[in-house]
């Protein structure tokens, strides 16, 4: 019959245990032995190809999760619309800088995107209109 390592350990332990055992010492020995046994068992598992593969897959999943989320189709479309409007606004601003200050219908529609832009359309020569213009130019240069 094959010997059981746990039974063997207990037999060895009891052989060296006094008739009146110190329960605490025995308990400590059992705990040490258990921890060591767990350590050996876990080490064996962790040394397998399967574990390395699993660990690699977990890391890969984590890396994928770190990448910026692409968003839904609707969100992407909305973003594209906003970018389109911004491009249009920039075009209008460039035109005005070049001396063509007459707002077009398209520009008025585009400017409705923000209160600041509305004030630009209504009072193109006011201070509040010039400040955003300067900001826009700086951004463009950058």
């Amino acid at each position, binding site marked *: 019959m094959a010997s059981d390592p746990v039974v063997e350990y207990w037999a060895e332990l009891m052989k060296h245990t006094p008739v009146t055992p110190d329960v605490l010492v025995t308990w400590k020995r059992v705990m040490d032995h258990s921890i060591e046994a767990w350590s050996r068992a876990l080490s064996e598992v962790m040394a397998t190809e399967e574990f390395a*593969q699993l660990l690699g897959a977990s890391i890969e999943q984590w890396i994928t999760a770190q990448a910026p989320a692409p968003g839904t189709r609707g969100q992407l479309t909305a973003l594209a619309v906003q970018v389109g409007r911004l491009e249009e606004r920039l075009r209008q601003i460039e035109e005005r800088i070049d001396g063509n200050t007459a707002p077009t219908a398209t520009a008025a529609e585009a400017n409705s995107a923000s209160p600041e832009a509305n004030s630009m359309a209504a009072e193109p020569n006011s201070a509040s209109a010039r400040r955003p213009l300067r900001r826009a130019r700086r951004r463009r240069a950058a």
Partner: protein
Amino acid sequence: MGKARLYRYESRRAHETPVLFVPNLGISRPYIFDLMPGASFVEHMTGQGFDFYLLDWGAFGSEDVDPNAEDCITDILPRMAGEVLRSSGADDLSVLGYCMGAPLSAAFVAGHPEIPVRSLVDMAGPIDFAQSGLFRRWLDAKYFDVDRVVTALGGAVPAPAIRAGFKLIRPTADASTYLNLWWNLWNDEYVTGFAALNAWANEYVAIPGAFFRQWVRDFYQQNKLYRGELRYGGRVVRLADITCPLLAVGATQDYIAPPACVRALVDAVGSADKEYIELPGGHISLIAGRGALRTCWPRVSDWLAARSSSRATASNGRRATASQGRGSTASDRQGRR
């Protein structure tokens, strides 16, 4: 030299040859080697009459990308060795590497024959990475794309990631540690030692991204140092070019650098005077704590003493100065309190 600092601990200088100590880069802080009075490797070595130079690679943060391993071997270590020779006035020096500091030291000694290295000691430093246990398995190129990992992390491999890796390699370590603490709570000496060691053990340090890339690819995955294929600084690094006396010290229960991968250095070098010893303990207990004072440190200092030129007139009473930092042993600090 970036964040690297060299601390000099002066001794009565019974031995003319100073010791340059090269620990691991990142992972943990080097104060483990001067943890507390009676449990300080620095204190032991200076007590034995060696001027001791401790290289501190630096406390890296998650923003650090540099240095890489090639910078360490071909730039930082040669300059530090030069600084040791200049400040000590010695003709040569001994190099003592611990953990990843050992393969870096071996590569530095092999690749710089112009630097007069009298002897080399490898303490728990992996050399043949094919035999380096669980980390070798986990970092296999089949499963671990180091470039993708470092890119995803940004700059460095941060301290929490380092901690996770080291906790995983020995998942029952904490249970064992705290069980032993509970068992020894009545023992003041044990508790004091535990508090100091535990504080150090939980202070993890990031590894610069560029270093981690080369460390994993060139050492763990391709084992270039052992195979004689490491080409740093425009020349191939061959361990066989090491001809100075060599001592390699392995620890029986070392999970990080198992004895076989440390012992490999002895067979790889071209030295005539070479020795391997295996001592009880693990990766940390080999070099830290009061147990090391009984088992490891005397073996290392005796071996070095036999291979260092002795000094006829010892100059007593000199205190710690530093080339780029100031060193004072744990005993000094306690004395000042």
